[in-house]
Each structure stands twice: as C-alpha cells, then as structure tokens.
C-alpha cells in the first residue's frame, strides 16, 4: 500500500461504555491507517471491539452509555471525534458510508426502495428529484439487481436477503463515498449469496476506488477479499499486516490459534487444535497481555507488563513479547519448552 495516500487515520482511539457495572473499555487505544482503494479487514471474535471501532468512526456509538474517551479519527484534515452532530451528518453517507450485517433492520420497512435510495442523494447533492431517481436506478443496476424500475417501487420485505444487501450496498455507494465500512456484510447470508456479494464488493472497490473497511469474524472472507488485515482481541489490535503474511506467517499466538482452530474444508483433519479457555468479556482483562491466560507460550513478563506492537516485517506488527527484540533469548527457551 506504500505510495497510496491515507484516507483515514485512527490514532489511539478509546471508546468506553459507562455501565452500572463500571467503565468498560470496548476499544482500548487502537491506531491504524486506511489507504485509498484498499480493502482492510478487521477480524476478531465477539466482544473484541471490532464493531465499536466502526461505530466510533461513523460517530454512531450509542451515547449514553458509550463515549469516545480518547484518541482521534482523522479524515480529510479534520478530527471526526470533534465534529458536531450537524457536521458529522454531512460526512456520513457522503464521505463515509456504512453497511450493516442485517439489511432488514437498516432499511425502513415503510418506504419504497426508490425513496430510500434518493433520500441520501437529495440530502447530500443538489440533484433534483428526477435526476436523483435516475442516479439511484443506475446504482441499483451496478450492484446487479434485476428489473430495477420495478424494485424502485417495492418495499424491503418484498426482496430476498441477498437482494436487500445489494440495495444496502447501492445505497451506501450512491453518493460515491471515499470510504465504505462494511460490518459483517455477509454474515446473515447463505454461502452462495455471500459469494455473489463479496465478488460485487471487490468489483466495486476496483472500479470506484473506494477504500473498504471490512469487519468480519470469518477468516475465509478475509483471506479472499482483503489486502491487509488487523486482528483484534479484547479491545486491542494484536496483529496487523498484509493478508498473505498474516495467514502464512502469523506472529501473534492468538492469530496462530485462531487459524488452527478453523476446520479447513479442503482436507480432513483428525483433530482440531482449539484455543483453551473462553473469549474474555470486554474490559475483563486490563493489565498485561490480554491473551496471556489462554496463551501456550506465556511467560512471566506477559502478566507483568503491557506488550506493545512490535514490528516483525515491513508493515507487519504483533503485540507479543516474543516479537520484542529484547526477548529473543527468552523466545528460544519457550519454543523448546512447548
């Protein structure tokens, strides 16, 4: 991705939820850049903070109880966390658009597809009604929907799940945003429909040069669509790197464990190698390495200090003391033990 300009920079973002049970840091100091035209994946299990990250960027964290408590989100020279709601509304949809997991809950059941599609255009552009409608129809054609003119006058419930997700994508892209955030866009869909939607997203990304932030729990989806990946665990980034590097040469024990625990459809494994223990609740672990309790390579320093992201290759980082140059000798010892 070197050479392409950054479109979004997240620096030390912290988003916490103030609940009766105390303050829960769902996103606990994450930093990353999104470059023009790339597809960046964020992968992690439930409660790792991947969705809260995307909601923070969109300024959609439910407040109260949620609040961005630190860090900045730089887009076009402005810090999105500092914008007023009115200014943020101009960014949303126009500059940064989002598609959600369940299209039925994000489409209004009372309005036709056409009126929902044109609404965004009427707000963000100075197109007239007729032109907006034509533009919306073009977009629906681009995402591969059949009989577009009829669908424009239909309601969301009349469409199938796959068609609704296509409408969502069309709606997200109709104002030609620079960034598309897709939060589990295919999780609610069947595999054959998922394949259609992923193919469409890749095609649109190439054609319109929109940067895509793809949030998912499915490692297969990441491998097939993303150029770079961020792995999150318990509110932190634990590994970041190019997709081939992460899958072929994972540097964090969590990433390694995650890859080993997925059954591969291509061959029969006698036994899976699960990660022991449970996925921690957000905010349950606050000191030391968050993964230490489940890690097979754990040593004293892991619970005593907080690991940083250590560079292992250009563009490849892992939050693990084993990758700290200072630990090289200790690393060899643990490998012998395990």
């Amino acid at each position, binding site marked *: 991705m070197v050479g392409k300009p950054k479109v979004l920079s997240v620096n030390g973002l912290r988003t916490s939820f103030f609940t009766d049970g105390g303050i829960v840091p769902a996103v606990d100091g994450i930093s990353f850049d999104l470059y023009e035209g790339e597809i960046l994946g964020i992968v992690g*299990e*439930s409660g790792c903070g991947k969705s809260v990250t995307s909601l923070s960027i969109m300024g959609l964290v439910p407040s109260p109880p949620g609040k961005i408590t630190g860090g900045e989100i730089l887009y076009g020279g402005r810090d999105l966390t500092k914008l007023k709601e009115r200014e943020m509304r101009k960014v949303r949809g126009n500059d940064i658009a989002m598609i959600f997991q369940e299209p039925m809950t994000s489409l209004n059941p009372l309005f036709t597809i056409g009126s929902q599609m044109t609404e965004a255009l009427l707000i963000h552009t100075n197109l007239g009604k007729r032109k907006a409608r034509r533009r919306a129809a073009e977009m629906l054609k681009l995402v591969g929907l059949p009989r577009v003119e009829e669908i424009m006058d239909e309601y969301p419930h009349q469409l*199938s799940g*796959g*068609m609704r997700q296509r409408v969502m994508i069309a709606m997200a892209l109709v104002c030609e945003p620079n960034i598309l955030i897709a939060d589990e866009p295919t999780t609610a869909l*069947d*595999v*054959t*429909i*998922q*394949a*259609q939607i*992923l*193919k469409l997203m890749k095609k649109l990304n190439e054609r319109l040069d929109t940067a895509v932030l793809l949030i998912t*729990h*499915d*490692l*297969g*989806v*990441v*491998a*097939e*669509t993303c150029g770079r990946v961020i792995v999150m665990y318990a509110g932190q980034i634990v590994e970041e790197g190019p*997709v*081939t590097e992460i*899958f*072929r040469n994972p540097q964090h024990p969590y990433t390694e*464990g*995650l*890859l080993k*625990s*997925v*059954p*591969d*459809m*291509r061959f*029969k*494994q006698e*036994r*899976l*190698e*699960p*990660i*022991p223990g*449970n*996925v921690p609740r957000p905010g349950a672990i606050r000191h030391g390495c968050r993964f230490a309790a489940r890690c097979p390579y754990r040593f004293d320093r892991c619970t005593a200090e907080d690991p940083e992201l250590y560079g292992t290759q250009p563009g490849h980082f892992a939050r693990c003391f084993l990758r700290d140059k200072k630990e090289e000798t200790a690393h060899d010892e643990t490998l012998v033990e395990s």
Partner: protein
Amino acid sequence: MTKPLLKVEGLKKYFPVKKGPLGRVRGHVKAVDGVSFDVYPGETLGIVGESGCGKSTTGRMLMRLLEPTEGRIEFDGRELTGLGPEEMRKVRRDIQMVFQDPFASLNPRHTVGKILEEPLIVHGVKDAADRKKKVREFLDIVGLSGYHASRYPHQFSGGQRQRIGIARALMTNPKLIIADEPVSALDVSIQSQVLNLMQDLQREFGLTYIFIAHDLGVVRHISDRVGVMYLGRLVELADSEALYDKPLHPYTQALLSAVPVPDPGFEREQIVLEGDIPSPANPPSGCTFHTRCPFRMDVCITTVPILRQTDTGHSVACHLYGGEADGNDNKTLVTEGSI
C-alpha cells in the same frame, strides 16, 4: 454391512399456507419433500444446506417435534410415525437433541443442576442422590465442574452453555443425538473446543450423530457421510471424503466452491450461482435446482431426478448422471467443480 439405526423413507413436511378472512388453505410450503436416508450405528451423518432447505425441519421430524406429512421413520427396528405420545416419550430417551442457540434452549430460571436432572426425572430415575451424582458426573465429562450445578445459565459463556446442552442430551444415555447447528452461534476459537468434545463423547459412549449445519468446513470435519439438501430434497449423499473431493451434483459443486477458504493464495475456479434460492412455497418444476443450474437440460425442467447410487456408493439426484440423460459428457463437469 450392519443394520441401520435409523431408516428414513420418503419423509415429507408440507406446511399449509392460509390466506383470506376464512383462513382457507391456499397452497403448501414444501419444507421437506421426500427425503430418504439411513444412519448406521456409531457414525456421524452430516446434513448441509442453505437456509430454507429443510434440514432443521428434517431433524425435528425425526424426533417428532414436528409431525411428518408423509413418510416412514424406523428407529432401532421400530416404526416411529404411528406411536402415541407416551410411547414416543419413551423413545426420546434414546434420541436426544442439541439445539443451536444455547441461550434460548436452557431455562433461565432453573439452575444447571435442575436442567440436567430433569431428563432423569422424566425417564424414571427415582433416587435423588443418584440423580445428583449423575449430574456431577456428566458436568465433569463435558469439561465443566460439579460446583457449576448450582449456577444459572446466564452465568456461563456461550461455549459453556453449549456444553450444558450437550450434557443434558447425554443424561439419558441416548443412542442417537440430533445436533442442529450446535456450533454456529459460537466464536471460532470455541467452536473447535465443542467439536472436539463431541468427537470424544462419540468415541466414549458409542454415540450416533446426525449433525445438521450450514458450515461446510465444520461438517466435513465431523461427518463420516454427508447429505446435501436443496429446497426440501436431498440432492447428494456420499462419504464425506468423496463428497468434498469429487462432488457430483452441480449444486454441491457450486456450494463447495463458494465457501471462502482461509488461505489467501489459494486458486480455484469459483462457480458463483446466479439468482436466489426460490421460495419453497412455489418451487420450480422438475429438478428444483434447474433455475440456477449451469448445466440445465430440457429434462430437468419437466422431470424430478431421483436420488440414485452411482457405482462408487455415491448417491446423486441429477439427470446428468441418470438414465434419462445418457450420452452426456459428465467427466469434464466433475473435474471442473472439484476442489
């Protein structure tokens, strides 16, 4: 070969569609439309398919949680479809079910001990101390501890709850366990724990599984044989190796090629199917897959293909392999779609 533990023949479930002020029946949703298969003792039969293909409905009919519209279910030499409620209750001692949602399938007001004890009470274990002992024993077997018996379901994580669901199914020493999407609500790192547990239990107790799921990787991992369903029918049934390495039905080929593989450099020919799954209320004529099939022939539109065995013990319901369509060059088809 040994006698099958479960023999299913021509199983059908039609749900009436009622419309209008008088609630007249205006048609039927053919959720399951003539499914036949055998399950042998000690094996795992996987059933895969996309939403609405009838896989869960099939599972529920086997336990007669849903009444079949037609067809026969023979379990351990006994016909189940005619049995009364009391007799069926006794049979359920031998057939147990594990459900998808470990949050919804455990009573939130009961302690885990009570949840696990209940099947024992229903099936006549009179001595309370015996029951308590058995509860602790099974909590241990599924990887939890005896002290967990006094806790409530909400105090457990999803993976632990699914372990409780499995323990409950085991309490009556069943022969057959029907698991309907048992790991799909769980996180990836937890899924593999539960799959390993299920395999261990199968070995230890000589269990037979019917494993219903949409995740093809998971199904391959756990199953000895796999059946693929599409719109209420079994389209292919084979040993899992054979099915995954050499799928015959065009739908199976497309389904397998559509699954994203966690390997960025992996090259393959992906068959992306056009269109959506048709509604089971108004399924296409002939072969229900013909509307999306890349190899459609005239016969597919008019005639329903029958599930028949090829010489390798691989069963497929497709005219490309049947008598009606002889002379078709299906060799290229097989290599194209295989993964």
